[in-house]
């Protein structure tokens, strides 16, 4: 069966990365109802932030020391950029019609891409990203790279942290309250502006981690890597139910699996072989999205809420 276990593992790993990015879309949407199309670029800048830290450390630094510092660099870079875009691009449009911030988000996305392209050294062509030592490991016929372990650990820890943060901390509950009803939350003494900034920062931090994971897995990063990946991550957020953080993770995993499995197994259906390839896998991903939304318009884990107008 064309190495089914390997395909499942690959799909889940790709999906976990989508999930980490999708969390950012979902948190921001849940709180300000803004589809932050620049989020893919936040992910990209995180990867470049990590690369800068790595280059600054100089060769000879052990990857065990480099990785935490790179993660820190990625999180700081993407968080700072996300907070700045929120402050400069989105906050002035807080009370504007919804279309205005959406178009602004697309503008921010293009701006960030071009800034990295124009000003990051040698970013005009893909840049090599360091790789983790060790591996690959053979586990029951499945080949696992050391970067894959990083992805799994990062995704699990991040999701647990997010769940803890949103459920138990004061700020987390303030976020929930703002998501439910921003006006009432404000009346209850919640600084909603601060909550919105935290939502952007939190999503950006996850995107930064995803950026490092992406770089480690594929060994290269490029200025336009956020566009397509961001689009898939957004799809994952919608698939899982936008606004729901567990849904984002689940949607990511489902999307990753669908992309990987359809690329190979559609060919086994008689007469369908020309619809099975890496490039067709995105088509199948969107077919699944449409099918899911036809049955569950709110997404896999989304709750049906009345549109507040």
């Amino acid at each position, binding site marked *: 069966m*064309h*190495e089914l276990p*390997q*395909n499942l593992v*690959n799909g889940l*790993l*790709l999906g976990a990365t989508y999930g980490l990015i999708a969390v950012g879309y979902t948190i921001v949407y849940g709180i300000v109802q803004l589809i932050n199309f620049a989020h893919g670029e936040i992910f990209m800048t995180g990867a470049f932030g990590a690369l800068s830290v790595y280059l600054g450390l100089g060769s000879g630094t052990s990857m065990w020391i480099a990785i935490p510092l790179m993660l820190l660099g990625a999180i700081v870079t993407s968080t700072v950029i996300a907070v700045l875009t929120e402050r*400069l691009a989105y906050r*002035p449009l807080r009370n504007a019609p919804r279309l205005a911030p959406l178009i602004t988000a697309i503008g921010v996305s293009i701006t960030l891409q071009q800034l990295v*392209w124009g000003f990051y050294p040698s970013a*005009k*062509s*893909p840049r*090599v990203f360091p790789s983790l030592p060790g591996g*690959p490991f053979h586990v029951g016929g499945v*080949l696992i*790279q050391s970067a894959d372990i990083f992805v799994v650990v990062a995704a699990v820890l991040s999701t647990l942290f997010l769940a803890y943060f949103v459920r138990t901390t004061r700020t987390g509950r303030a976020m929930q309250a703002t998501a439910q009803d921003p006006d009432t939350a404000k009346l209850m003494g919640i600084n909603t502006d601060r909550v919105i900034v935290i939502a952007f920062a939190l999503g950006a931090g996850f995107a930064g981690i995803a950026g490092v994971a*992406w770089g480690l897995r*594929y*060994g*290269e990063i*490029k200025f*336009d*890597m956020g566009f*397509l*990946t961001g689009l898939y991550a957004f799809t994952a957020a919608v698939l899982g139910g936008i606004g729901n953080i567990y849904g984002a993770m689940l949607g990511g995993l489902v999307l990753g699996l669908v*992309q*990987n499995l359809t*690329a*190979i197994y559609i060919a086994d259906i008689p007469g369908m072989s020309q619809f099975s*390839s*890496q*490039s*067709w*896998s*995105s088509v199948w991903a969107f077919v699944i999205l449409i099918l899911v939304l036809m049955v569950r318009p709110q997404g896999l884990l989304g709750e049906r809420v009345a549109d507040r107008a």
Partner: protein
Amino acid sequence: MRNRSLLVLTAIAATGTLTLTACGSRASNSGSGGSSSGSTTVTIGVDAPLTGSLSALGIGIQNSVDLAIKTANKNNEVPGVTFKIEALDDKAAPQQGSLNATQLVGDSSVIGVVGPLNSGVALTMQKTFNNANLVEVSPANTNPALTQGPNWQTGTKARPFASYFRTATTDAIQGPFAAQFAFSTLGKKKVFLVDNKDAYGVGLVGTFKDEFTKLGGTVAGQDHVTSGASDFSSTVNAIKSSGADFVYFGGEYPDAAPLTKQLKAGGANIPVIGGDGNYDPTYIKLAGTAANGDFATSVGAPVESLPSAQTFVTNYKAGGYSQAYGAYGGYSYDSAWAIIEAVKAVVSANNGKLPSNPRQAVEKAMSNVNFSGVTGTVSFDQYGDATNKQLTVYGVKNGVWTTIKTGTFSG
């Protein structure tokens, strides 16, 4: 308070933009000021991806044309005519190429265009240029249909556009050349084909497949990938389970490098063979040690090995360009030079002056161009194809492209 800080920011941004604009307009004024000394200034347009992942190749093309123009102006190659460059970015996107073609046609000082890089982009530009009789010389397009019509494979060759020329060899030769190399020289019998769905990649894989199966090889499987994707794990698995002993890739290095990297990390130690789109130092830089043992064919003989190219290489270095001339540098220089030669012929046939509507005359003169260029003798056949049909196989050894053999495909 908040609003005021925003206002300050906006003001700073606006001032910055205005300053930049002012710089831009001053520069262009001084450019046109040079032409008032009794000579006519004509423009050679360039269309190539100057941004995006293929910009390394595109900027090499732009710089090489720039060098050709500077050399022609310095030597006073065409008395009474000064050349200048106008480079447009097509982002490797067919739509943008079509817009650029319209813009270049609209500028009456443009008498010839070098570009584009991608065959898929060329398809959208040809007609616009042809309607305006504006000569287009591509240093890199290898899709046979561009010069020989869509039915070239069935033997009915018909040149679709009289204004289109190229200095690069076509995939009608490149694909079979690679197939012979893989089958006879390497002794590989089972191929897995991968293309990136654009005109170049699909065409190259098609001509390769035909010759490879004719020789007796088998196709173990085929996949089509999305340009710009990073995850090739499904393709890698398909290759592994197909049992192929090598991969033939139709596309460019930004996709080929991660593919070969993931293929080898996935445990399949088989070579990836590609066309001129793979032949770039960036391929090795991105793929690292995984690139060792891979091959690529490219148009012409290696520029560095040609005695005719030494001056070009020296002058390019002296020109202070920050980017390398890349795989198509020599061909771009020759493409620009072919236009310059055509202009020279037109001017000398018109009593030393450029005719008032030179485009049509330049187009006619192109078919008689014959000079010794960077890549050898440059001239065009009845289809607008280069008469120089040399190809070279390069292999990655210890992290550098090394020449394996130079030759051509003959039936």
